[in-house]
């Protein structure tokens, strides 16, 4: 018989009990996330109500009530049999070539298509990981592609490519050209300006700072106005730059000032030791920058460079205001065409433009975020 003061101690741990039913699974998740307090319940109800307002009407407009076939406005009109009309898609189908090429001659449009393909090849080559010959990719994108594109789009009679005036260019093609020129020129210019701003030479620094702060302090519209009305004044009359070229110069200068600040942030993120190491090896300024500092600085700023390119891509719509026939302008022209004029034509045009711009910008921002996570995880592993 055991003595009175002997106690029983278990030798094995008690198995953990399952959490209570209402803390688990669907119910627990709902209680935790959506219904934890009166305010939370109110917020949940408000969100559900918002979703109820937005999703069905959006779905109805874009898909369920939308018109899919037809040849003119009568297909998209409200009739007693069709009290609800949604998007007028035949209008977009019929105008899709106009939206893409503007007034570019129909039998020369294959040249624009080749340009699109070459551009996509360049972008994929540069942005995709583990693509071979990245260096040649950069040469292709920043030197070869611009030359070939000008010959293709503008024309090059020795090769049998007839001349197409830029006043005939339009639509998505112009939007892409303007953003591509902005991106291609802003990076090298921005790097030079950023290096100038961090230079030890006071005059170089002063001019860089003045240019960057001046351009960043004014709206893009005024830069475009300056390029379109003042640039022709500043050059000899015989030069008189083309209207599109003027806008391109304005966009490139504007983008360069913003890019300079992005690159400067990257340069500041490089530890001093890297500079000192390069100097200890006896490298001169350009070798130090080109071989040691810039490659690292640009790599850590890729997400910011992409973000700044997204902003540029959206901002290119402003060339519309100085009379360039970009994608948004084609929408504006098409939506007031009497052949398709119905109450929902404008909304359809804007919805199409919104889908286009959203997809482009969203893919770019996905890419930037992907690079960011990759950089963070790589840095973490190294520690």
């Amino acid at each position: 018989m055991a003595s009175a003061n002997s106690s029983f101690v278990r030798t094995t741990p008690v198995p953990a009990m399952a959490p209570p039913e209402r803390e688990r699974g669907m119910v627990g998740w709902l209680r935790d996330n959506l219904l934890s307090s009166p305010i939370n319940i109110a917020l949940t109800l408000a969100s559900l109500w918002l979703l109820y307002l937005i999703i069905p009407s959006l779905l109805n407009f874009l898909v369920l009530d939308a018109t899919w076939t037809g040849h003119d406005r009568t297909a998209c009109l409200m009739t007693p049999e069709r009290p609800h009309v949604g998007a007028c898609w035949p209008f977009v189908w019929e105008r899709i070539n106009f939206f893409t090429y503007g007034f570019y001659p129909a039998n020369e449009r294959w040249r624009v298509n080749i340009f699109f393909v070459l551009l996509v090849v360049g972008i994929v080559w540069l942005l995709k990981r583990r693509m071979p010959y990245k260096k040649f990719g950069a040469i292709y994108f920043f030197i070869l592609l611009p030359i070939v594109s000008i010959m293709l789009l503008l024309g090059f009679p020795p090769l049998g490519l007839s001349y197409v005036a830029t006043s005939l260019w339009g639509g998505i093609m112009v939007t892409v050209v303007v953003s591509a020129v902005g991106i291609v020129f802003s990076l090298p210019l921005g790097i030079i300006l950023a290096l100038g701003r961090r230079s030890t030479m006071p005059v170089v620094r002063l001019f860089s700072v003045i240019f960057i702060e001046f351009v960043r302090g004014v709206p893009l519209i005024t830069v475009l106005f300056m390029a379109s009305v003042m640039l022709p004044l500043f050059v000899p009359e015989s030069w008189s730059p083309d209207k599109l070229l003027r806008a391109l110069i304005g966009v490139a200068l504007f983008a360069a000032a913003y890019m300079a600040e992005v690159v400067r942030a990257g340069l500041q993120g490089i530890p001093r030791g890297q500079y000192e190491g390069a100097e200890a090896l006896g490298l001169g300024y350009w070798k130090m920058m080109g071989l040691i500092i810039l490659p690292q600085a640009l790599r850590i700023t890729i997400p910011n460079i992409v973000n700044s390119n997204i902003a540029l891509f959206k901002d290119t719509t402003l060339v519309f205001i100085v009379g360039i026939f970009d994608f948004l302008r084609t929408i504006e022209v098409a939506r007031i065409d009497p052949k398709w004029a119905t109450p929902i034509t404008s909304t359809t045009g804007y919805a199409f433009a919104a889908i286009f711009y959203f997809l482009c910008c969203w893919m770019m921002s996905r890419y930037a975020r992907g690079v960011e996570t990759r950089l963070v995880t790589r840095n973490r592993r190294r520690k």
Partner: protein
Amino acid sequence: MADARGTARPQVSPINDPRWRSAIVQVLLCLVIAWLAYGAITNAADNLARARIASGFDFWNSTAGFDISQTLIPYTTQSTYGRAFWVGLLNTLLVASLGIVFATIIGFAIGILQLSKNVLVSRLAAAYVEIIRNLPLLLQLLFWYNAVLKALPNLRESITIPGGAVLNNRGLFLPRPIFGGAMDFVLAAFGLGVIGAIAFRHWARRRQALTGEQSPVFIVALSLIVVLPLVVFVAAGIPVTFEQPEMGRFNISGGIEILPEFAALLFGLSIYTAAFIAEVVRAGIQAVSQGQTEAAFSLGLRPGPTLRLIVIPQAMRVIVPPLTNQYLNLTKNSSLAVAIGYPDLVQVFTGTVLNQTGQAVEVVAITMAVYLTISLITSGLMNLYNRRFALKER
């Protein structure tokens, strides 16, 4: 370096000496820029002379001869170009300042909702940010103006909103309040209330410092500033009447008229900038480490004071600089008014005045100078703020 050891500095040819080199580079740069500037100026003078455009600011005092749809100061077609400039500038400042207020309110709300534990709410807020940020502002403005406001019913079928407001495709017409003479008493009560609230706060602080006892500052201040004038307002017999917008045969007269151009610009700018402000706010709050909150709780602070005294002051340090940038962006973006015809500085001055006078150099220079001044003042204030509140680390 060599001098430090007492040895003579080695002789270097001037081509390889960094000091000489940088001096030469800088002189060359100056020469190139001076040459470019000289070329630009002579070309401009030639071109202007050929086009017979006078240079100088004489146009400032000539009669403008065009009308402006919204003016905050008296303006007629007989007014000068200078007057038109001020009208445009004031319209820009009006839409920018109202836009800043609305964008801040929406942006802070969305930013905080993005951090909500409620998945539905935070996802909705994130979707708002993602969609709005990835669409060009110009597209949004055109959408609000052409597809929403211009698609409203015409004058005959105007929508009447309870309270006397009228909405149609010409704008929103609100009743205009007309205050009676007794309003002076209400204003006086409001002034007294503000002074009283400040005095009470001062007294409460001293009392807390001396005795440790807290006073209900917020409730007392609220009743002094809001309730007191309200009581006087009712006691004075509600001295306000409304001038209702009258529906005429061809137009609406009376009341306050809000143009669709103004509404679309204000709406678009606020919604667009709010998405960026929301991200700024979210990042700012997330930058305050969780340990700060835990430390505050362990000191016995309740969630309210923790947020107000610990988290928000630290988050503001991170939020304010990018927030100011967003305010600047909003002000600069208000120049997109030109696309929908709201008479802001760019539309009136760089648009109409430039077209009529042809004086591109002067007009564009003045416009840029205005925006540059706004930017420089803002960044100057920002630097002051940073100097005062930046984290002082040892």
